[in-house]
């Protein structure tokens, strides 16, 4: 029983701030039918298991997994929901295949953020109901606090955070899936309205609708079905202190642990030399810097200066978020991890079109579930 697993099918739909023409089921179906054609599989006959990532309150429905099978072709088949990020879904599919009891597993994630009329108040309901929520503070306050500590501990500057926004939204100009492409200067970003100082509104990803479906396969099935399988060589996920009160506000130590788990599995001793490019969570601009350091792709405090110097630019030494990231594409709620993994897979297949990077072999995708969580997941892939 070989334990190699590959991604052999990709499908996506939407990627616009609003998708009023389609219901969430129809949006997911559009992504699913493309993924199954790409993988050359029939869900009703070939697929052994299905995984969805979703959260009830984002859907406006309790027990949302009731409404997931039909549009994926999963009726009367093994299917379950993971309340996590898209990469948690990929890790689940990876484990299911590694048990030897499944050869083909489908992972689905989507966002209909445009349908949520009171997202800030719903997000606030994720705060601790006794210790935090009674203060009636917008949940972005947690990002504001973390950014203030991060800048204090690493010496990173607001200009360097602005450089992340400039880079990612310019990268987005080459990505047809990106809804928020723009050509900006750091000053324009810094001149934007404050959200939770030192965090500005322009350093915060906007919401967008969309769906992503991926088909994962055991080695045997992948070699039989796919001309260009993209191998999952390492996966890791970790939670930190969920209580604000016992957090280390500067570092993302949970991303560090998730990365160590993935690197150990991939046999990567020195990430910077092994990883050719990365898609890293940038729900807030400073998070990209914090995550790069947590991923060991640069030393603590180095991410800011390196970004300002173009080290992580599309033609820099370590291209980061060539897709545009959340800042350029938009925030797809629980599916954002799948969007990171989608870009890494397209790059490793050489199918990234105008933003294709030259001869890349190992890519990393990392995602974070946003405030108020301390939940991060990492997946390392190679072609």
């Amino acid at each position, binding site marked *: 029983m070989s334990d190699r697993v590959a991604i052999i099918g990709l499908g996506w739909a939407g990627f616009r701030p609003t*998708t*009023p*023409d*389609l*219901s*969430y*089921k*129809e*949006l997911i*179906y559009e992504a699913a039918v493309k993924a199954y054609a790409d993988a050359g599989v*029939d*869900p*009703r006959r070939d697929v052994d298991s299905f995984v969805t990532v979703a959260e009830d*309150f984002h859907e*406006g429905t309790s027990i949302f997994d009731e409404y997931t*099978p*039909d*549009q994926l*072709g999963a*009726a009367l088949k093994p299917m379950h929901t993971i309340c996590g990020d898209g990469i948690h879904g990929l890790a689940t599919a990876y484990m299911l295949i590694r048990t030897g009891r499944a050869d083909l597993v489908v992972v689905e994630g989507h966002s*209909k953020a*445009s*349908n*949520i*009329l*009171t997202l800030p*108040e*719903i997000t606030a*309901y994720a705060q601790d*109901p*006794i210790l935090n*929520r*009674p203060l009636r503070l917008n949940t972005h306050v947690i990002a504001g606090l973390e950014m203030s500590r991060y800048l204090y501990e690493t010496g990173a500057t607001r200009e360097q955070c602005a450089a992340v926004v400039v880079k990612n939204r310019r990268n987005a100009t080459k990505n047809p899936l990106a809804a928020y492409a723009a050509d900006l200067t750091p000053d324009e970003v810094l001149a934007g309205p404050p959200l939770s100082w030192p965090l500005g509104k322009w350093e915060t990803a906007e919401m967008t609708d969309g769906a992503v479906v991926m088909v994962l396969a055991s080695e045997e099935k992948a070699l039989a079905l796919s001309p260009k399988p993209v191998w999952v060589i390492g996966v890791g996920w970790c939670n930190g202190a969920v209580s604000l009160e016992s957090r280390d506000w500067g570092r993302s130590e949970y991303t560090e642990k998730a990365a160590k788990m993935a690197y150990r599995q991939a046999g990567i001793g020195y990430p910077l030399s092994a990883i050719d490019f990365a898609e890293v969570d940038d729900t807030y601009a400073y998070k990209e810097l914090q995550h790069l350091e947590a991923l060991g792709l640069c030393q603590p405090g180095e991410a800011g200066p390196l970004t300002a110097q173009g080290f992580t630019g599309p033609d820099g030494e370590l291209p980061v978020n060539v897709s545009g990231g959340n800042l350029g594409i938009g925030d797809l709620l629980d599916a954002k991890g799948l969007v990171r993994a989608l870009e890494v897979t397209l790059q490793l297949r050489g199918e990234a079109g105008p933003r294709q990077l030259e001869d890349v072999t190992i890519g990393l995708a990392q995602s974070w579930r946003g405030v108020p969580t301390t939940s991060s997941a990492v997946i390392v892939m190679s072609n």
Partner: protein
Amino acid sequence: MTSKNREFPGTPLSEKDFEQGKILFLHDEMNGQYAWDTGIGIGRYLAALKEGYLLGSHCRRCRKTVIPPRTVCEQCFRPMDAFVPLQDTGTVNTYSLCYVTWDVQRITEPEIPAVIEIDGASPLCGIMHKLGEVEPDAIHIGMRVQAVWKPPEEREGAITDIRYFKPIKEKGR
């Protein structure tokens, strides 16, 4: 009981403990508002309800006509072939007499939910709705029923445009 016969944790409370302030607690309420995109299938369904008829969809491969209409046949995982207007009559597949409202208030006059197989759709294909103008003990599985519509000007394109389903008086019964 278990390998170690220790006391199981857990601190039960009564409503009195709250009322008498024996323990600290607080209330909260979430403002969860949504506008769910109806899309093609459910959009057409609601439009049909507004116009006073029930709509299903048909899959040629498995030859089933289902309701509510959807753009994908979940059995065959292929696009449905067509939307199909259906009658607003049907057969009671099952029913209940419910004396508790959704927010757990007791009522003396029962609400009568039912699954009604709609004429024109395939067998066992029905919708949930309510029965009305009927004596509870007259209801039986297999009973023939007819939709009672709100007047056109009151209809808004919603499942509640049908007030309820009432028995069809069989001729000679």
